[in-house]
């Protein structure tokens, strides 16, 4: 900026020089031109040196981190850009691009200005030196405690939070920084606090997780290079971990396949213009929209699914060469290296996974097999009737029915707005479903179907058929399994149903009654509590941590707040802010901020000290409210007519809480 200003001033100075020639002082003009020119050269040089410094930072730590080398037919987005500027620009604005980045001033979002942190007795100091990012980490060995300085070389994520990886000193192996920079709060928090994990759970600090796991989906054509079979290893001959990727981040060729042949063929302008003029489809590259629905969805499913390598041989090969799947391949083929895991499947790979971790399914699925963690949307699609019917004439739902990787020119939204979830324009509403369910384009038919007012949130297709029963990124996320709401799912699978996720003040009995009257769905047997107490309150007080997280999120979800008269919620959110799970406390706090009177409420969800005090503060504000007499009360909300709470019942329900450890593997 400063250099730019200097350059502008110099140009302005040069522009007045002709005045000197008019006044007969031409010799000064020559001198000034000389000085001005020298200044401009200097400013340009300084600007270039800044660019060089950024580049140098990018390259200087290449010896200590995975490399970015386009190979095996991959040529990287830098080549695609020349011919596909619009596609490049839209991809560039996406969070797919920034999923993995080299740590530079352009990519690092965290605060590295001499920050001291401590976790489980381990001190970490974050700082910058010579334009690089460093972590001084207290490391305990068997003999003694020592402090090690590690250069932070890579980042993961840039949308909600950013993770950091430092060079471990062992070839290209990376270690994970135990703290994450949380963008919503602009602060460092323990990495484990950003996942739904039991209190005091200490995530694996083993080095090499990135090289072995993250690389496969967070880069394009990642090759862990671990093991003797690794081609990269063979080439180098000396390294034990020679990790490389064709491109960091999820780039063009992740979805379009390797593009080397496409580029070679299209260097011929006659071929290109023949395609342009004749409007022919290009067949030298995979175009997902030209594939059938199943294969198009599998391009997303290669990463957005629960999957396991099939055999030990596949594991070994992946450790060396990464995923063999390429866009256009059949992910579900018997020859595929991986199996997409679904409940009820019998496969040795699944048996082995369950043998290693008996809670394997619980960390990913609801008891009835519906996927419950984010990032696995392809599983949801596979289980959706809109996809399962496979009748092209009726229209088969696929990822691209609602999402798009490149918004069109006439999209009125900004790229930032689009990038949030990469939905097509208008797909936040009913338009997504009305593409096929044309009957409901008629408002009367829609109202007759939903039994809600046309403009009410209860008439929105998503809210009933894709409720927020998936968890991830510290929030509730829409399930990608399209299903019909039922009380049965809440009783048998212990999954909240769509009705009670909006009508937080209603009981399961109430929902069962409506579903029976409106749709003829037989009500399942309910317990006394389920008949009398609002389902959301039962899930809040008695549910496991996964349910509590979803309840905390829904108590800050605008449609639910409007449909349920939100004034009774703050004490329950206050209670959830004392939850043993960090993630639940974070979500509860952020929901509380959306309630009137709590917009400026301060709470540190990581701190162990202020939880009870926070509950008291929340209750105090609530109790002191003048208009309390107008608030919603009743037995189902566990409040008396005078607004006071039925503390004994609440305590009794809390004692019945499902305290089994919950770990959700998002």
């Amino acid at each position, binding site marked *: 900026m400063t250099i730019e200003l200097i350059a502008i001033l110099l140009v302005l100075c040069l522009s007045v020089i002709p005045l000197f020639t008019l006044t007969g002082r031409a010799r000064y003009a020559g001198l000034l031109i000389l000085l001005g020119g020298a200044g401009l050269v200097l400013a340009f040089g300084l600007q270039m040196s800044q660019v060089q410094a950024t580049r140098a930072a990018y390259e200087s730590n290449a010896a200590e981190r995975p490399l970015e080398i386009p190979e095996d037919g991959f040529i990287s987005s830098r080549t695609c*850009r*020349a*011919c*596909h*500027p*619009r*596609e*490049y*620009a*839209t991809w560039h*604005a996406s969070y797919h691009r920034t999923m993995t980045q080299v740590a530079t001033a352009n990519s690092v979002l965290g605060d590295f200005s001499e920050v001291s942190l401590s976790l489980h007795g381990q001190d970490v100091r974050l700082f910058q030196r010579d334009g690089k990012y460093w972590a001084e980490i207290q490391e305990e060995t068997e003999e003694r405690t020592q402090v090690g300085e590690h250069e932070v070389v890579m980042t993961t994520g840039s949308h909600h939070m950013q993770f950091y990886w430092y060079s471990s000193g062992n070839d290209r192996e990376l270690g994970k920084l135990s703290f994450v920079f949380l963008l919503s709060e602009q602060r460092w928090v323990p990495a484990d606090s950003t996942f739904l994990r039991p209190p005091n759970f200490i995530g694996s600090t083993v080095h090499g997780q990135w090289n072995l796991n993250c690389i496969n989906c967070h880069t394009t054509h990642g090759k862990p290079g671990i093991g003797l079979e690794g081609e990269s290893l063979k080439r180098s001959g000396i390294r034990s971990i020679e990790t490389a990727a064709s491109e960091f981040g999820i780039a063009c060729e992740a979805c379009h396949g390797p593009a080397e042949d496409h580029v070679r063929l299209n260097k011929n*302008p006659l071929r*290109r*213009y023949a395609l*342009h*003029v004749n409007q022919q489809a290009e067949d030298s590259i995979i175009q997902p929209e030209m594939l059938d629905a199943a294969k198009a969805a599998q391009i997303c499913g290669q990463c957005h699914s629960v999957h396991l390598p099939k055999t030990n041989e596949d594991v070994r090969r992946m450790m060396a060469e990464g995923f063999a799947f390429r866009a256009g391949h059949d992910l579900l083929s018997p020859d595929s290296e991986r199996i997409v895991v679904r409940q009820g499947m019998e496969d040795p790979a699944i048996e082995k996974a369950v043998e290693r971790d008996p809670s394997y399914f619980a960390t990913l699925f609801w008891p009835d097999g519906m996927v419950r963690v984010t990032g696995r949307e392809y599983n949801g699609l596979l289980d959706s009737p809109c996809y399962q019917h496979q009748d092209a004439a009726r229209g088969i739902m696929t990822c691209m029915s609602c999402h798009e990787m490149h918004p069109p*020119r006439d999209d009125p939204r900004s*790229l930032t707005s689009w990038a949030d979830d990469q939905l097509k324009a208008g797909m936040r509403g009913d338009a997504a479903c009305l593409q096929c369910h044309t009957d409901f384009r008629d408002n009367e038919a829609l109202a007759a179907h939903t039994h809600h007012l046309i403009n009410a949130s209860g008439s929105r297709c998503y809210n009933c058929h894709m409720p927020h029963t998936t968890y991830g990124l510290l929030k509730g996320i829409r399930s990608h399994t399209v299903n019909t709401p039922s009380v049965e799912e809440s009783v048998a699978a212990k999954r909240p149903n769509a009705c009670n996720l909006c009508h937080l003040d209603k009981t399961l009995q109430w929902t069962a009654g409506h579903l029976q009257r409106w749709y003829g769905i037989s009500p399942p047997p309910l317990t006394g509590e389920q008949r009398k107490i609002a389902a959301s309150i039962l899930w809040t007080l008695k549910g496991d941590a996964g349910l509590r997280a979803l309840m905390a999120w829904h108590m800050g979800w605008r449609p639910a707040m409007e449909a349920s008269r939100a004034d009774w919620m703050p004490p329950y959110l206050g209670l959830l802010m004392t939850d043993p799970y960090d993630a639940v406390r974070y979500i509860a706090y952020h929901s509380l901020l959306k309630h009137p009177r709590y917009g400026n409420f301060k709470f540190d969800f990581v701190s162990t000290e202020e939880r009870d005090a926070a509950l008291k503060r929340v209750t105090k504000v609530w109790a002191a409210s003048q208009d309390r007499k107008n608030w919603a009360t009743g037995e189902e909300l566990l409040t008396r007519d005078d607004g006071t709470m039925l503390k004994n019942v609440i305590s009794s329900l809390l004692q019945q809480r499902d305290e089994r450890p919950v770990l959700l593997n998002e």
Partner: protein
Amino acid sequence: MAESPTRDVTALPETVRYARRHMNFGWWSLLLFVSLGIGLESLHGFKVSWYLGVGEETRRLLWRLAHAHGAFLGLVHIAFAVTCKEREGDGQTWRTIASPCLIGASVVLPGGFFLGGVNVYGGDPGLGIALLPLGAVLLFIAILLTALGKSSSQVSTRGEKPRDSTRRKRGR
């Protein structure tokens, strides 16, 4: 009623006619392409999406090239006019070919860039870009002939009497 005086352009010396033609062409060309430049600046000013939008790099590049080539060639015409005047006495062959070539290039080059930017195919310009090779060849010929003509004129003015037919005509 007195007859208004008319100027018979053909009566003017050939060098003057060429100079006048290119001087006129040059200034009008400058006016046109400076106007285009103002138009492009306005598109920036008003953030017009079909010019500045994501992925419109190709159109921006081509229209900038049209503006730059048009304005620059306008200046070349003025220089050509000055050259014609300066070399009043030399032969006319180079001029009679170079002049239409330069005018053709001045239409085809910026026009090709402009049309190429109207309908783009991603990173590829529209079909108007096909005019460019023609324009490039015309410009090359024009400059080559002018350079050769200039060289021969320099040689001739050192020792020989200039071979200018117009001057000879005037002498008669």
